[in-house]
C-alpha cells in the first residue's frame, strides 16, 4: 500500500467565498430561531451577504455563496431535500437569475436597494410558483400572492438599505469582510 496524499489547493477566492458563505449560513440559522406565525415569512438577512458579495466579488462568487448557504443551512436545520429546501432552492435560483441581469445596469442609477427589492420579489414569486405547481396544486395563487409580495417588498427594502449602509461603511474601512488570509 502506497500512502496517498490528497492536497487541495485553496485559492484566495475560495477563502473569501467560504468566509462569506459561513456568514450567510450564520444569519440563516439565526433567523430560523425567530418564531414566525406564517411559513415562508422571514427577514432573509442572508441576502445582505449575497448582495455584498455580488457588488464586491461579482456574480459568480455570489452564486457560490447562495448555493453553499442553501445546502449548508438546510443540513444544519434538518430540512435538506424536504419541500422547505426545494422552496429555498427555487427562491435562491430565481433571485440569482434576476441579479445577474440587474447587476449589469449602470451603477450610477441602480444601487443595492433596487436590486434587493426585485430579487426579494423574484425569490417569493418562485417559491409561491413552486407551491402552486408542485406542493399544493390548485391553491389560488392570486389570493395569496399580494400578501406575500408585500412582505417580500418590505424585507427587500430593509435588506437593501442595510446593504447600502454596509457598503458605505466598507468604503471608509477597507477591512470589512476581508478574510485574514
Amino acid at each position, binding site marked *: 500500500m502506497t500512502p496517498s496524499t490528497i492536497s487541495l489547493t485553496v485559492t484566495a477566492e475560495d477563502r473569501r467565498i467560504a468566509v462569506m458563505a459561513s456568514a450567510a449560513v450564520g444569519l440563516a440559522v439565526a433567523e430560523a430561531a425567530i418564531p414566525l406565525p406564517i411559513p415562508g415569512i422571514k427577514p432573509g438577512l442572508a441576502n445582505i451577504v449575497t448582495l455584498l458579495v455580488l457588488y464586491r466579488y461579482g456574480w459568480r462568487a455570489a452564486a457560490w455563496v447562495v448555493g453553499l448557504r442553501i445546502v449548508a443551512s438546510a443540513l444544519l436545520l434538518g430540512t435538506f431535500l424536504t419541500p422547505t429546501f426545494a422552496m429555498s432552492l427555487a427562491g435562491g435560483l430565481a433571485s440569482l437569475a434576476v441579479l445577474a441581469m440587474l447587476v449589469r445596469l449602470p451603477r450610477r442609477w441602480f444601487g443595492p*436597494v433596487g436590486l434587493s427589492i426585485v430579487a426579494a420579489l423574484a425569490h417569493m414569486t418562485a417559491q409561491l410558483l413552486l407551491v402552486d405547481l408542485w406542493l399544493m396544486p390548485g391553491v389560488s395563487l392570486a389570493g395569496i400572492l399580494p400578501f406575500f409580495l408585500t412582505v417580500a417588498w418590505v424585507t427587500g427594502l430593509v435588506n437593501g438599505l442595510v446593504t447600502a449602509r454596509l457598503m458605505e461603511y466598507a468604503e471608509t474601512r477597507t477591512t470589512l469582510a476581508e478574510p485574514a488570509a
Partner: protein
Amino acid sequence: MRAVAAVSAYLRPGDALILALTLVLIGTLWANRGTRGDGVVVRRGGEVFLATDLRLNRLISVPGPLGNTLVEIHAGQVRILSDPSPRQLCVRQGWLAPGDNAICLPNRVSVERGHSGHDSINY
C-alpha cells in the same frame, strides 16, 4: 420625516423607480385579489353544464326537466336568479359565498362557487 430622508440617501434614481413600480404592481395585485381563480361550476343532472369564472357578468340559462334555471354572475358574485322548482330554496340562498353551493331540486341544477380542481384539503 427624518426617516424618509435617511432612506432616500441610499436610493439612486433607478432604485426610486423600482420602488414605485413594484409598489404599483403589488397594489394592482391587491386590487385584483380574488377575482381570478374563483371558479363557478354549473351542473345539470350531476354532469358539468358549464365551468366558468366570476370575471364576466352574465346570465346563464340552464334547461332542466321543469324548465329553465337562471344563474346570474354579477360583480364577482354568483346566485340563482330564478328557478321553476316549487320551494325556491336555491333562489332564497342569494349570493353564494366562496366554497358554497346551491342545489335546485327537482330541477336538477346545481351551482358551486369555488375551485373546480384540487384544494389543499382534499389534495
